[in-house]
């Protein structure tokens, strides 16, 4: 397998789009419940935990870009095979494939769960997952540029929802934030760790890098995307802590969606219904981008034809989404993918970088 990819110029995109790719992939199902998850660990000082997680995100992105710059036009699959050798490299590639599969599953299942709880309790799971997966197939058949276009368009179509949070802000109770620094360092770190599930998605950089036209400009859009994600998570968490009582927030599963419950306009009395329907547009870039990365990895690892592997993956996802029925199982799945994602996305690049450096130097000395 070639370490570097040869991409035709008509398949590449500008570095500018990385902002949308990274950001839309990070914001997804996780944002709906993230305030509670962080609050349980870090309490009233959750905002510090999020800022810590945000800083660490930038650090990881910096490392990732450093790794990618060591090669001309490689993705993580190629780099791993170059660094670890064929067998170990491919095994690590399979870990990525498994991770993408389960994160896709958990995104789909979590969204269907929300639709069932909030809007249509009677809607069958197979219908919803059929809809979402057919959209995924449709977008993926269009190729990489369509995938990027999806994330760009759906970002513009949904970002205005942020403005509606102004209403819950008026109900905030600022007493919930003082005194600050009540939480211990360990709990802060735990909170930062829990933020992980909602900011997974940075790993896409390892896969799309070969497809970027102007590689020297990669850093800015990536860091801007990360900063915007951190800001959104910070916003919904701070508003949730002020809006709910501490004990109440610990029990509210989808705190972000519950915030929307009090928003009403003369023609739309319950905005949460609209928000959940619109959330599908937030979910689709997730599904499409993760799906693309999954198919791309399969192609790079085993030279599988894109179309047939896409259909097989879609059918497997469809079956798996029907088989998981209980909410506890969905939560378990989310927890597993979350911790796998944490190691793969936030720890692995930091370990990989020194290995890449050593490998490169070692080679230089051997082959002058």
């Amino acid at each position, binding site marked *: 397998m070639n370490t570097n990819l040869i991409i035709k110029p008509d398949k590449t995109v500008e570095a500018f789009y990385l902002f949308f790719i990274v950001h839309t992939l990070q914001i997804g199902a996780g944002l709906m419940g993230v305030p509670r998850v962080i609050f349980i660990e870090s309490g009233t000082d959750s905002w510090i935990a999020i800022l810590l997680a945000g800083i660490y995100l930038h650090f990881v992105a910096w490392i990732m870009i450093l790794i990618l710059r060591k090669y001309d036009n490689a993705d993580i699959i190629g780099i791993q095979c170059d660094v670890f050798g064929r067998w170990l490299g491919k095994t690590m590639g399979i870990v990525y494939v498994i991770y993408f599969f389960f994160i896709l599953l958990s995104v789909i299942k979590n969204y269907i769960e929300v639709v069932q*709880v*909030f809007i*249509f309790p*009677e*809607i*069958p799971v197979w*219908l919803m997952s059929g*809809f979402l997966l057919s959209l995924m197939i449709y977008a993926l058949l269009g190729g990489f540029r369509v995938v990027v276009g999806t994330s760009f368009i759906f970002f513009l179509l949904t970002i205005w929802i942020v403005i509606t949070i102004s209403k819950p802000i008026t*109900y905030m*109770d600022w*007493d*919930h934030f*003082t*005194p600050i620094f*009540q939480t211990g360092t360990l709990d802060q770190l735990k909170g930062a760790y829990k933020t992980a599930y909602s900011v997974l998605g940075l790993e896409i950089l390892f896969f799309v890098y070969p497809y970027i036209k102007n590689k020297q400009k990669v850093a800015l859009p990536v860091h801007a995307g990360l900063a915007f994600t951190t800001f959104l998570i910070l916003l919904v968490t701070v508003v949730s802590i002020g*809006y*709910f*009582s*501490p*004990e*109440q927030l610990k029990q509210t599963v989808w705190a972000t969606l*519950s915030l929307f*419950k*009090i928003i*009403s306009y003369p023609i739309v*009395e*319950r905005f*949460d219904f609209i928000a959940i329907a619109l959330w599908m547009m937030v979910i689709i870039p997730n599904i499409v981008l993760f799906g693309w990365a999954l198919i791309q990895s399969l192609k790079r690892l085993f030279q599988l034809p894109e179309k047939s592997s896409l259909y097989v993956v879609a059918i497997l996802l469809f079956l798996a989404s029907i088989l998981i029925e209980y909410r506890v199982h969905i939560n378990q799945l989310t927890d597993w993918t979350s911790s796998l994602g944490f190691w793969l996305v936030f720890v692995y690049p930091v370990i990989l970088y020194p290995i890449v450096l050593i490998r490169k130097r070692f080679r230089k000395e051997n082959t002058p």
Partner: protein
Amino acid sequence: MTWKQIFIVVVLISISTGCIPKSYIERLGIITAIGYDLAGENSLRGTMVMYQFDPSTTRPSQVVTSEATTSKGLRLEANKMTSHRLVSGQVRLKLFQDQLASRGMTKYMDTLERDAKVSDMGLLGVSEVPTADLLKMEASKEATNSGEYIKKMIEKNIEDNVLPDATLRTFIHDYYDAGIDPTLPMLTTTDGKAVISGQALFQNDKYVTKLSSQDIFYLLLLKNEYKDGQFQLQLPDEALKEFHKETPGSSAEGPLHVSLHEIDSDLTIDPKKGKPTEQSVNVTIEARLLEITKDVDLKNKKAIYKLEKEIEKKVKSDLEQFLEFLKENQVDPIGFGKIYNAKNRENRVTKENWRQQIPELNVSFDVKMKLLRHGTVE
């Protein structure tokens, strides 16, 4: 896209809409208000006011009463009594009988919270009479049914700063917060009409006692919710004797009442460091004098000062009485414990230990009164 593809998409869209259960508005009974009463030891009686948009019926709203053990069970039972399918997405008012409320409201409200269909901005209330009586009352002209009428009445009073907020959101928020108890408006019937008779005070979610409507002013004053409010109070008869005008046949006799309007209040509550039971309260009230039952010479600055001092004295002693009332009943609707928690790291107030500490509460009040204007006559 080719015509064939467009055709497939259109067919798929039209077929897939059938997968979602339909709700025809003519076949729905849209519940707008529910009242809960205690029927037996373990059973509830529910009264539901519902709208139906059936063109063949003449009356748009209907009241159904049923008995069950859970509040969703009530809806199930009520479904047997009506030709319409009952839905709870539009419930705007929930009333609880006082006997039921004193057993703890959250066990009946759990379903309100768990069901995502129920809006968080719905209003809650406690009733001194069975809620069935309130909701079955003949509606007045301004509203189509009694539930609607009561909802509008509570809503208006909250907007006018006569009542504290009574939404489900606020109730649940205060219930879960440590160091504060929720409150709700109290309703009763007078001459066949629903009226607000005071404010129900809670220990956590258990109804304890009723605050008279006169004292709601002090509750609001200490919750810092005053913007453009109004209030009447009675001062000692002879308080302003030296400034009475000497007009013949003047109303020098009788009690001295003043009516204050456009009240704007400022509030600071300072708990002592490490001691949640020691608190000091500073209240600054700005208001307009609209009515005074004695002919007082208001051109005289001294008269105004004297009047301000008298009002300050009265408000202060009333606040102290009000606090005694809260201490007797071990309730803290103002949230002294919560304010302490926001400013202190040590000796934190929790839901458990605050209840015992309330009777030891020691609050010093400092009231400042400013009468800015006094109407068109002097």
